[in-house]
């Protein structure tokens, strides 16, 4: 009881502390622009930006742009992640395939996705497909490697136990290999989700596909009086990033509640 109320208390004080920091940063921003330390032609005041943000939040344009961004991101992530889990599992389970293919995977992982952006633009133009391809490609390689390591990381005692319990084939894969690999896959997914969002915005900014990235570019091109809108949109992308990361962290905590790193943090759901 007292331990519980202590935990609730700690939670409230951490929320209070974070709120205070946010307020302090916003106040500092306002102070700096009011005092003239921030050049008004490239850095609008906090209040102007917030007023613009409030206007944007009730306009359909922002929500349409957000929808385009989310759709491209989610589709690309889903495709890239599914392929990565499939390919990573096959490579992880087959030593020969692993040894043959791993140099290529390692190499392609290091190719900066930005380097293939022009190619994607040439092939697909400023379209959803271009965005989806870029995200799927960027997410696929690092996640594949993560899945391979996860599948190969089954503890030797767990492996012996599976043999002794006569777990074979699909039952063994679903019951032992996947749960053992899950912590690796979850970390990979969390990172992939964040990287995927960045790639989506880049595809829109540079490739010109519809979405938050393109909206930012449009407001920049519209001249200095649209500057608060630029900053408001940048804030929105930041918030989107935070939402995505914390959503995946929550998911991880739920699914991996049994894992050493997550124990006693979440309700077990039993």
């Amino acid at each position: 009881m007292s331990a519980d109320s202590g935990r609730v208390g700690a939670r409230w004080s951490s929320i209070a502390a974070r709120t205070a920091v946010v307020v302090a940063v916003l106040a500092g921003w306002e102070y700096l622009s009011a005092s003239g330390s921030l050049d008004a032609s490239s850095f609008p005041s906090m209040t102007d930006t917030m007023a613009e943000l409030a206007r944007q939040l009730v306009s359909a344009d922002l929500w349409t742009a957000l929808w385009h961004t989310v759709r491209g991101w989610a589709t690309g992530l889903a495709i890239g992640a599914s392929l990565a889990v499939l390919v990573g599992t096959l490579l992880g389970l087959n030593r020969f395939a692993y040894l043959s293919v791993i140099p290529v995977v390692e190499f392609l992982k290091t190719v900066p996705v930005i380097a293939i952006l022009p190619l994607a633009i040439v092939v697909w133009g400023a379209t959803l497909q271009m965005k989806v391809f870029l995200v799927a490609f960027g997410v696929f390689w690092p996640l594949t490697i993560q899945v391979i390591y996860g599948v190969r990381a089954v503890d030797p005692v767990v492996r012996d136990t599976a043999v002794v319990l006569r777990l074979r084939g699909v039952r063994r894969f679903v019951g032992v290999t996947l749960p053992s690999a899950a912590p690796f896959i979850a970390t990979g997914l969390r990172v992939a989700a964040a990287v995927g969002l960045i790639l989506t915005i880049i595809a829109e900014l540079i490739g010109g596909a519809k979405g938050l990235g393109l909206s930012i570019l449009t407001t920049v091109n519209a001249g200095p009086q649209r500057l608060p809108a630029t900053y408001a949109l940048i804030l929105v992308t930041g918030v989107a990033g935070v939402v995505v990361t914390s959503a995946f962290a929550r998911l991880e905590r739920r699914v991996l509640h049994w894992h050493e790193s997550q124990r006693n943090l979440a309700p077990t759901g039993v």
Partner: protein
Amino acid sequence: MAGPDPSVAAAKRAGEPVLSVRTLAKAYDAGTSREKLAIAEVSFDVARGEFVCVVGPSGAGKTTLLRCLSGLLGPTSGEVRFEGTPLRAVPDRLSVVFQDYSRSLFPWLTVNRNVAVPLRVAGVGKQQREARIQEVLHAVRLGDVGRSYPWQLSGGMQQRVAIARALAQQPDMLLMDEPFASVDAQTRFDLEDLILEVRRELDITVVLVTHDIDEAVYLADRIVVLTGAPSRVQEIVDVPLERPRTQLGTRSSEAFGRLRRHLMELVTTSS
């Protein structure tokens, strides 16, 4: 139920052994520059219903031996026969309890689901499965923990779950690798008595590996004493202590002391 009648035990021993180990040798990384001989030459038999302990110093190759006996590891030379046929894989009527319960129990499954694994594999129906789970959890004296996760339990309780899961396989023979090495003394006594009871009730053959001489004397019908690595059989010692055994009575008996002393001599001279 009283302990096994000595004349019956003798008759069983006269019959065909359940497990027969013949000039077993095991080298790791055989044929490479890192070749490491873990077992030099080990031979012994285990009769049906017998409780055999294998003792040896740390690093003697006990775990290696147990993995060879279970079919998890193939021998470099020599042979292991289970119920008359040479081992190729882990036989159906054999189960293993590993030393490290925190790794051998699946942390992503509740206790009930851990115990259910071998039952699902065997295709046991849902209702029968639940009955069996209750039965084996009761056999290891575990109360209402089925819905907990193994890591929410104490070490002693976790090892009970591991034993319950092994029993759910309805094995003829149970192999155990230092099963009580990482629990406190009191829990250890409880678990030793538990395994003796289970073995008597279910009439299974047990081979238990340990580095603890007292434990071996308390549990076993016979003790296979190994030398240090690479291991050989130093001596096979009969333990004619009467059953049922009790921690206080048996351990304070004169016969126990004599056996213990004999084994101490063997182990200290071997190293």
